[in-house]
């Protein structure tokens, strides 16, 4: 019968399964030591990390941030952020062009290939324009006066071609005073 087979008499628990007090104490102590090691190691590592961060990492980061800020400020004040100054590279490229054209491209029985030079584009930043000041004399007069050495007629003709610009007073705000 199924109910008879299920009614098995239980085995009495032997005394050997009950842990001895000493083994319990040792097991508890060992578990506590293991936990102590983990917790103390983690806490000590954290304390050293915080100390090192406060002592070394934070000043270093502050110094880096300060130097980076100063560098960017200097860069912005010198106008390097929007790109290089338009006149200087143009002059440099023109000089490079001139030297490249004068340097012979062939040596003895050897032809040096010349790479194609990039096109020169001078871009003036917006809001900037060249203007002559009102007090300056006529550039042609100044050139003629300082011409101690003989000037070729072609150069003089180039100077003569410069139109006389319309001089606009830059200090017109001061003229409103009575």
């Amino acid at each position, binding site marked *: 019968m199924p109910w008879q087979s299920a009614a098995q008499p239980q085995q009495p628990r032997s005394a050997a399964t009950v842990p001895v007090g000493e083994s319990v*104490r*040792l097991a*508890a*102590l*060992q578990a*506590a*030591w*293991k*936990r*102590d*090691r*983990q*917790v*103390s*190691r983690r*806490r*000590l590592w954290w*304390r*050293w990390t915080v*100390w090192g961060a406060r002592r070394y990492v934070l000043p270093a980061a502050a110094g880096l941030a300060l130097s980076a800020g100063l560098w960017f400020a200097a860069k912005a004040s010198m106008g390097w952020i929007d790109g290089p100054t338009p006149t200087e590279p143009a002059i440099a490229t023109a000089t490079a062009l001139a030297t490249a054209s004068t340097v012979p491209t062939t040596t003895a029985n050897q032809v040096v290939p010349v790479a194609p030079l990039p096109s020169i584009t001078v871009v003036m930043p917006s809001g900037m324009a060249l203007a002559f000041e009102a007090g300056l004399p006529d550039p042609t007069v100044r050139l003629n006066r300082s011409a101690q050495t003989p000037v070729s007629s072609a150069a003089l003709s180039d100077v003569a071609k410069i139109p006389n610009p319309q001089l606009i007073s830059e200090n017109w705000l001061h003229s409103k005073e009575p």
Partner: protein
Amino acid sequence: MSQNPTSTRLVPAERLSAITSLIAEGAVFEGNFHTTRDQGIKVDGLLKGNITFETGGTLHVGATGVVENTRLEADYVFIEGKVTGTVIARKALEITGSATLLGDASYDELIDMHPRARVRGKIEYRGDIDAVQN
């Protein structure tokens, strides 16, 4: 498998192995612990009360142990956790780098304190200052 207790510098390992009483982690004990025998107690939980060993005695505050508003007196005191109160070590006092002691501590013979230990209180040597030194 037997494990060694936490590495110590002053408190002998056999003293830590001879701990007889344990307040486990997560347990809260409120009251005083007092004995005249040379026994030991390890606190891994929270203890609110005094611990006094009249003779001998080893007190080990584990890394997870917290002892509040208390007066601890034993021959060997080994602190890894947080103690708020007065500590009296008749022989050796050892404060590890994970320990926090808020209160005064006094010792008669030896002291060892980790540089990363957090102590806010007075440390007093109770021995004879004018004794002949070697």
